[in-house]
Structures are given as structure tokens and as C-alpha cells.
């Protein structure tokens, strides 16, 4: 299968400390990959480098055979830092993303789908963390990218939100999208993934089938 993302010898240093050191990772088109590992292992940094949110200190990232920076329109990253503007409403934030990213979609339907229709015109500063996360999902659905990267997608969400995320993963898999998920909800997510990658101390320390993580073979 064609490679969607290739990270070659990727390293990233923050203030003299290597958060990632020599990560080699290849994700095939249509593959769903779980990234897991302890706090501070480098999972978030890896996703940010793979998505081109930050540049690697060394190494390269290519997406569909081209430098990732040239392929930004084909990927999306959902992370803790949501990028929403506090003073604007949820609808404004979504309209902004649609206008700046030249994206088309029924914003009302998206807000309805993520459960924000009733609060869509309130400033985002009045939203709870879970509502902000839901707005991030709406923006991600608007972009509808070929490669989607999730960093702790379940964090701050309620039970209904967890179900929404599960359904979204299933939808993305059915659509043939390439998905990378970094989460501590390993038991929940691993069975949905084709492959699991364990990161520790900024390195890939184990790779295997998603189901093997649940049965404990990754330990």
C-alpha cells in the first residue's frame, strides 16, 4: 500500500532536551495507527512534527511523497491547544476556518452534529473544555482531510462525547482515511487500530498489531 506519512530520523529538541530522537515511522494510506506511551514520551511532539505544526530539529517528514509543509491541505491535527479565538463565537470560529481554509460545508449541520447548535453564537470563552473540544471536532469535520491526527481525542469529553469519537473513528476507517491517534485510552482504541506504536523517551520502542496491545504483548 502507498505510504501516506513517512518520518525519517526525526528529532526535535526543546531548550537543549531532545523530546524526539531518531523516530522512523511509516504510515500507509488508509491505515489507523495508535500511538501510546507514558506521559512525556514524545507522542504530542511527534504528532505536531508529523502535521508540520512544528518543524523537526533534524530528519524529514513527507506526506504522499512531498514535504509535509506542501501537503498541509491534506491533513488535520486535533490537539490540546485548540486554536479557537476566545472572543469569537463558536459559529464565528467555524466560519473563519471555512473562509481562510477555503472549505465548504454546512456549518449549522456540523454544529448540530457535535452538539453545539444551542451555544453556537456564544463567545468561546464561555465554553467548557469539552465544548471547546467539540468545536475542534466540527472544524476537523469541515476540513475532512485525507490524514487526521488526534492527540487525546477523548480528553474533557463526556460519555456521549466518547461515543461520538468512537463513531467518528469508525466513519474515518470506513472512508479509507489515514488516522493517527495518540491516547491513554489504549484498551478502548487499540482494537479499532490496524497497528500500535509505543513511544518512550522520544523513540519508537515497539510496533505491532492493535489487538496485541490489549492482550499485553506490547509491555
Amino acid at each position: 500500500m502507498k505510504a501516506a506519512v513517512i518520518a525519517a530520523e526525526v528529532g526535535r529538541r526543546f531548550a537543549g532536551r531532545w523530546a524526539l530522537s531518531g523516530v522512523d515511522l511509516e504510515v500507509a494510506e488508509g491505515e489507523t495507527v495508535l500511538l501510546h506511551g507514558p506521559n512525556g514520551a514524545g507522542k504530542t511532539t511527534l504528532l505536531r512534527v508529523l502535521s508540520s505544526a512544528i518543524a523537526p530539529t533534524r530528519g524529514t517528514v513527507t506526506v504522499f511523497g512531498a514535504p509535509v509543509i506542501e501537503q498541509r491541505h491534506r491533513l488535520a491535527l486535533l490537539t490540546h491547544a485548540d486554536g479557537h479565538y476566545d472572543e469569537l463565537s463558536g459559529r464565528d470560529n467555524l466560519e473563519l476556518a471555512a473562509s481562510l481554509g477555503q472549505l465548504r460545508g454546512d456549518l449549522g449541520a456540523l454544529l448540530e452534529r457535535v452538539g453545539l447548535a444551542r451555544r453556537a453564537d456564544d463567545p468561546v470563552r464561555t465554553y467548557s473544555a469539552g465544548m471547546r473540544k467539540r468545536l475542534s471536532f466540527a472544524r476537523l469535520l469541515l476540513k475532512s482531510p485525507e490524514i487526521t491526527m488526534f492527540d487525546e481525542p477523548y480528553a474533557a469529553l463526556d460519555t456521549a462525547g466518547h461515543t461520538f469519537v468512537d463513531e467518528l473513528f469508525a466513519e474515518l476507517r470506513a472512508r479509507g482515511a489515514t488516522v493517527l491517534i495518540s491516547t491513554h485510552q489504549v484498551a478502548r482504541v487499540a482494537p479499532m487500530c490496524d497497528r500500535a506504536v509505543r513511544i518512550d523517551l522520544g523513540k519508537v520502542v515497539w510496533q505491532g498489531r492493535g489487538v496485541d496491545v490489549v492482550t499485553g504483548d506490547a509491555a
Partner: protein
Amino acid sequence: MVRKELLHLWRARSRVVATFAFAFATLLLFSFAGGLNADLLRANAAGYLWVGLLLASTLSLGESFRVETAHDSLEMLLLLPVRPTAIFVGKAVGNLVVLLLVGVVMVPAAVVLFDATPREGLAPLLLTVLLGTASISAPGTMHAALSARARSRDLLLPLLLFPLVVPCVIAAVQASRACFTGDVMDELGAWLRVLVGFNVVHWSLGALLFARVVED
């Protein structure tokens, strides 16, 4: 991007009000420092106006990027993807609008506080304010972006910006002085051309180099 900046400015109007309040307080302090010497105040009105605007600009410029870094919105924009040049132009125009609004309100304040009536009329003075604030906005946006992620960004921004914009401020002060006291030496046009030149250089450099600043 420009529309986004203007919408955000409208929703967070307190930024403009705070910048104006700071600039006005600076003018007020200058008027107290000058004491009862009306001639001194009148002669230095242009300088006071621009020092007030320059100091107030650091508040506004810093805030314009605090908004972008608070929730990593700048990263979100780059991933949408929005071209860094478009981000620069949008932010710089947004900063220009704030400074221009403050500058336009500061002119009558300076007239009242320093008894400095613009003898050349209001139009050349407003043109000077436009060109002067634009020549602060472009490099200000660039350096606000540079210092946005630094821990001591509030200290860093004026340290980086002031040396760079000193020539622009000198030109703006000289042009404003000619407007206030009368253009007897026929130098107003020359100073305005200098300001146009600075604007061409700063806006072009900003558009060219902004990607290097924001692409981490």
C-alpha cells in the same frame, strides 16, 4: 485575514480602548512635565504625540499576538493552511487600524493639551499619522510575532522594535511639527516621502520574512 482581524478587533474592543487610554495618559504626563511653559509644550507637541503613540503601540502589538499564542491559533491558521504572508498582512493591517484610530483621536487631544493648532490644516497631519502608524505597524507585527513565544515578551518587544522604528518616528515627528508650526522650510513633502519609503521597505520585508518567523 484582514476581515478576521477586524472582526476580532470589534469583538475585543477593549484592546483599542486600553491602547487609547494609555496613549492619552502619556500625553497627560508630558503636559504635566512641561509645567506652565506653554511655548515649550507647543514646540514639542509633535514629539509628545509620537512618543505617546509609540509607547502605546507596544501594548497593542503585544496583545495582537497574545491572542494568537494563547491557544496556538497561529498553528491552526498555518495548518488550515493560510499562507504566512496573508497572516502578516492581516495582522499588520489590524494593528494599523488600532494605531490609526488611536492616532486620530490623539490629534485633537494634543491640540487641546498643548495648544498646538495644526497650521497646515488637518489633512496633512492625518496623512502623517497614517504613514507614521503604518511604519510602526509592519515592523511591530514582525517583532511581536518574534517575541510572542518568549517568556519576557513584554520586555523584548520594545527592545527589538524601538531601535528599528526610530528613523520612522523621527520622520513622523518632523512631518507633524511642520503641520503644527507651519511648513516654512517647505520640508513636509520630503518627510512624508521618507515615511513612504520606510513603509515600502518594512511592509515588503515583513511579507517576505514572516514565514521564517512563524514556521517553527
